[in-house]
């Protein structure tokens, strides 16, 4: 199913556009659930035994599982259809965004004076990982339409189609699930200043403002258009957030100025060098007692070869060049290199609050247990998805 966004910039789509979006959500569900199951069967039935015969052992890494599957009919069908479905996601919403550009601008203008701020930096050179490729095959990437609302609207509406309802009505399930987990697991933690790095349109920023309404929440991103859209989107939902154009690896904030630094699905879009710099910056701007928390894909080190390959697919075929490099890194080591202590590191898998309900998170916290990384639902946008997170406290 395609969700209907719950804010005034949601599409006023034509019946044809609604039908196209519904079809794309449906075909993605077929691919990511049914054909994904067929792919796993093909691996077990053909690819893995063939590899074993040729090498005298099973594939040991994501790369080897990928190599084993290349050329298999199930891999070819799954992959070709998934690439096309991804292109259809953005195509399904592009006409509507173009047609409604004046209305979007009018809606944004209507809330311009609502609490919350937007500060763009025309002097900031948008990094190539954002501007030089069509990230996840989104034409024009995050810089489409420069600082207009276009990129944000395409992303917001496209994600509504892409997510098949698994990211919630306002695409905030990740933030809601993570914020609920942190609030329950660490009830004494009361951040006064929260920084969201790589926020895009702020869809997973707002849950932190909802969880900690007294906190000042700052959301940064390198791309100006999604920030402009995200600022208006936040105001429409009554959330006062400070949106600023800024790169996570070069924060214009003094030392010890935040109680929490957060990101969601962001680290895998950075090069290794930039990612390390972003971690160092997060450590620098955190106050003692502060928390760095990232929602991301689970690392390859915590998964078997096939499950690792399944997530790494995006790196090769969905224009996510840093995805596998990120997943090959160890979250603990990333934190240690930034200055955090090993004893202050933690990782967890939290059930999607939209799918499993708040009680599932409460039960998990009450049992002082976390779901194991590596199960087929962790990080996969398919039925039963769960979210992987990790973080560290600064002492």
């Amino acid at each position, binding site marked *: *199913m395609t969700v209907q966004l719950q804010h005034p910039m949601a599409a006023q789509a034509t*019946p*044809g556009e*609604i*039908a*196209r979006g*519904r*079809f*794309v*959500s*449906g*075909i993605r*569900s*077929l691919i990511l659930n*049914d*054909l994904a199951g*067929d792919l796993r*069967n*093909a691996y077990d039935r053909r690819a893995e035994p063939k590899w074993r015969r040729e090498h005298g052992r099973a594939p040991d890494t994501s*790369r080897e599982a990928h*190599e084993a599957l*290349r050329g298999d*009919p*199930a*891999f*070819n*069908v799954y*992959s*070709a*259809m998934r*690439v*096309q*479905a991804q*292109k*259809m996601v953005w195509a399904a919403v592009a006409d509507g965004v173009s047609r409604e550009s004046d209305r979007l601008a009018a809606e944004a203008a209507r809330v311009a004076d609502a609490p919350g701020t937007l500060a763009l930096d025309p002097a900031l050179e948008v990094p*190539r*990982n954002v501007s*030089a*490729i*069509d990230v996840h095959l989104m*034409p*024009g*990437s995050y810089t489409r339409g420069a600082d207009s609302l276009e990129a944000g609207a395409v992303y917001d509406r496209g994600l509504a189609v892409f997510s098949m309802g698994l990211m919630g009505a306002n695409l905030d399930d990740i933030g809601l699930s993570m914020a609920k987990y942190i609030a329950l697991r660490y009830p004494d933690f009361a951040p006064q200043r929260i920084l969201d790095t790589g926020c895009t349109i702020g869809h997973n920023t707002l849950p932190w403002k909802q969880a900690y309404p007294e906190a000042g929440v700052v959301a940064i991103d390198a791309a100006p258009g999604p920030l402009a859209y995200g600022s208006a989107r936040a105001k429409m939902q009554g959330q006062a957030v400070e949106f600023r154009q800024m790169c996570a690896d070069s924060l214009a904030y003094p030392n010890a100025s935040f109680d929490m630094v957060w990101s969601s699905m962001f680290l895998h879009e950075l090069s290794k060098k930039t990612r390390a710099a972003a971690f160092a910056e997060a450590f620098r701007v955190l106050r003692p007692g502060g928390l760095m928390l990232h929602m991301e894909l689970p690392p390859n080190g915590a998964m078997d070869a096939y499950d690792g390959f399944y997530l790494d697919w995006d*790196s*090769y*075929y969905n*224009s996510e*060049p*840093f*995805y*596998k*490099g990120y997943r090959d890194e160890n979250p603990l080591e990333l934190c240690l290199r930034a200055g955090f202590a090993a004893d202050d590191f933690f990782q967890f898998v939290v059930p999607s609050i939209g799918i499993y309900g708040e009680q599932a998170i409460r039960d998990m916290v009450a049992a002082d247990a976390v779901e194991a990384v590596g199960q087929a639902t962790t990080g996969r946008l398919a039925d039963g998805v769960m979210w992987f997170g990790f973080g560290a406290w600064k002492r």
Partner: protein
Amino acid sequence: MDEALLRPEDAPPEIYDDTGRARFFADPGMELFIAVVMNLAQEVWVQEERLFTLEEAKGNPATDRDALAKAFINRVFEPLRGA
């Protein structure tokens, strides 16, 4: 966009064609064929929804279009299952 310049470090070069697009089948026409079939199925579904709208306007009960879309997709792409 300059896609060819940013690829995973360990990406085997043969998985992309000379324009930088991912290649899965030995015959590159197959990728195009699959894309056309998916686009065509989408257009058929759009017509299906228009028919539902007309039928509902004539007094037929409203339909669960998400469920119908799922059934439609399952029927059309059934031959691919278990590939």
